[in-house]
């Protein structure tokens, strides 16, 4: 089972790197959906004993919310708007990858000194989750489009979830669902705000620079 958990952890980090190096928003959302799908498989492989109905339930809920509803809302947010591609990231794509690699190295280095209690399923859980959180952070601060910033936030949340799944007998399932629900509502409200921002842009004829559409600052 550990090899499966390892594989999922590595896939999640690689997919975050892929989002970091991508510039088409729609592709980024698809990669995010794939990442969330990989994440939602994790509960099946964590237990050495048989899989309980709780695990299945949690996996299904995660799958529906993170790999289904959230990407759907994000696609809805970009549908009416001409902001299909990230035009001017603050750091170029090549440099982003190098920085991203450095962040991953840093995350692995930090987690050397953090010792998880023996229950963790795999040694890779902590460094991979930290890397994903950091990569999410980086996407958020280096991209200027509203939707990409939301994606950065979601990747960060995925990193936190990767970590959370490995210790979820501490958290009752209801609370985990509450967390998921919060994230869902957050994305929903963010999508609405993005839409309103764009409507305001369109109302204002002085702002003809369409390449600036969907930028937040």
């Amino acid at each position, binding site marked *: 089972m550990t090899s499966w958990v390892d594989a999922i952890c590595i896939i999640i980090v690689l997919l975050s790197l892929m989002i970091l190096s991508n510039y088409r928003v729609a592709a980024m959302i698809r990669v995010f959906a794939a990442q969330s799908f990989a994440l939602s498989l994790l509960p099946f492989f964590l237990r050495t004993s048989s899989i309980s109905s709780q695990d299945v339930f949690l996996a299904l809920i995660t799958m529906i919310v993170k790999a289904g509803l959230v990407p759907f809302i994000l696609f809805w947010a970009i549908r009416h708007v001409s902001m299909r591609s990230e035009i001017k990231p603050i750091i170029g794509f090549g440099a982003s990858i190098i920085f991203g690699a450095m962040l991953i190295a840093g995350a692995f280095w930090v987690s050397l000194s953090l010792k998880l209690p023996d229950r963790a399923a795999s040694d890779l859980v902590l460094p991979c989750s930290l890397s994903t959180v950091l990569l999410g952070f980086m996407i958020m601060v280096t991209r200027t489009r509203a939707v990409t910033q939301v994606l950065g936030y979601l990747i960060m949340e995925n990193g936190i979830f990767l970590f959370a799944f490995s210790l979820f007998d501490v958290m009752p399932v209801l609370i985990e669902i509450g*967390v998921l629900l919060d994230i869902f509502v957050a994305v929903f409200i963010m999508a609405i705000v993005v839409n309103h921002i764009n409507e305001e842009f369109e109302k204002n004829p002085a702002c003809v620079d369409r390449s600036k559409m969907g930028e937040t600052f």
Partner: protein
Amino acid sequence: MLTILILMPFLCGLGVLLPVSKDFRLKLFVAASLCHGLLTASFWKELPASEYNGFLVLDPLGLILLSIISFLFLSVAIFMIGYFKHEPKRNRVFIGCLLFLLSTMSLVAVSYHFGLLWVAIEATTLFSAPLISFHRNQQSLQATWRYLLICSVGIALGLMGTFFLAIAAHNVHTLLLPVILKGASSLSVNWLKLSIIFFIVGYGCKMGLAPTHSWKPEAYGQATGMVGVLMAGALTQCPFLALLRISQICNKTGLTGFYSSILIVSGLLSLVVPAMFILGERNIKRAFAYSSIEHMGLLVLGLGLGAVGLFGSLFHMINNALAKVIMFLTAGSVAQKYGSSKTDDVKGVIHIYPVTGVFLIAALLAGTGVFPFATFHSELLILNAAIISKHYFLAAAGIICLALMFIGIGKIVLGCIHGQPKEPLLARKENIYMNAAIATSVVLLISIGLWMPLPLGKLIRNAVTLVGAV
């Protein structure tokens, strides 16, 4: 009882979303706030029993916060009766979000499980975000966006802290507060330290402590006065409850020194930063937002300074909330009358609207902590705690920053009060509801400044014992 307290506003919120008349929505909101207030008042007599296997418990700390929330919503509800008379806008989403906010904030006050606490605090962020862009324009949407993103990320770090706490508490297998406190000796200290750092960064971001305060002037500057009250008085004090809960754990595990030092540093930073920015500010609401950062800094500082400071902090929670009612409701009332809250547009308030002018002076005095307003006493208690614990430099820096804030806010407010209005304004009469809401808080804040009622003193002392600070 606690379930009713949370569910009642939530159901009313759902009711508001239905296609009903504007007046009915407003009435429902007033009724819900009133019921919430009565329920909370009944808890002062006797604390309700815990519910859902100890997930929902109301203790003295929670009661302080719950009373603040209840009172603020009631004041805002009364103010709104007057405000919406002159406001043609639709209020469906606005009042719906207010009611959901009331429900989730009550949940924060009574949740005893760190996971549930996180869920509730994040939910308060989400339901308050649409309130900021009530006057929908580019600036307010940008402010909403900034608030949503910064706070969501901050709170995500709080979630990380919650999971680190779960690792620290892996021997007790739960995040229920009493169980953690009972098994405090078996907590893993290193993970606990890590989780404390994440908690302070995450929840501090939500409180608007420097250096993660940048959403505050934007959001408060764009939001209507009523939303400003709820955000500055109640919403930002909700994460402070989380910090108090962590303080309970730290005091049991001997990490008090570690926790206090971080709190003192971030508190001091939150005093210095607004004092630097206030002097160049030219907008009443934004100035009051800086004052809010400063008050949050004082709360955190008090928590870091032991039992005396903690008493001051808890007292300051109440005073800060009342002061914010006076400040932001007056600012909202001024902004509605003048159509702006910039100092260049608002002139001669006291000549045209004498009552609002007096309230504006009261807002200045209450917000900057001048006798006889009770904010004076709580600030004095916190500074006193700094001197008792031999942090002389800290006390001196605190006094200088408070003085700078007084100068900064005084300049702005007095500039608005005096002077000749540029053009004849639409002579709107003062509204009795709006003024009554503000006047109640002025009277309350002065009276607890002159004499602290026995039940209040007892409640705060109980809360201090509960935290276990020495």
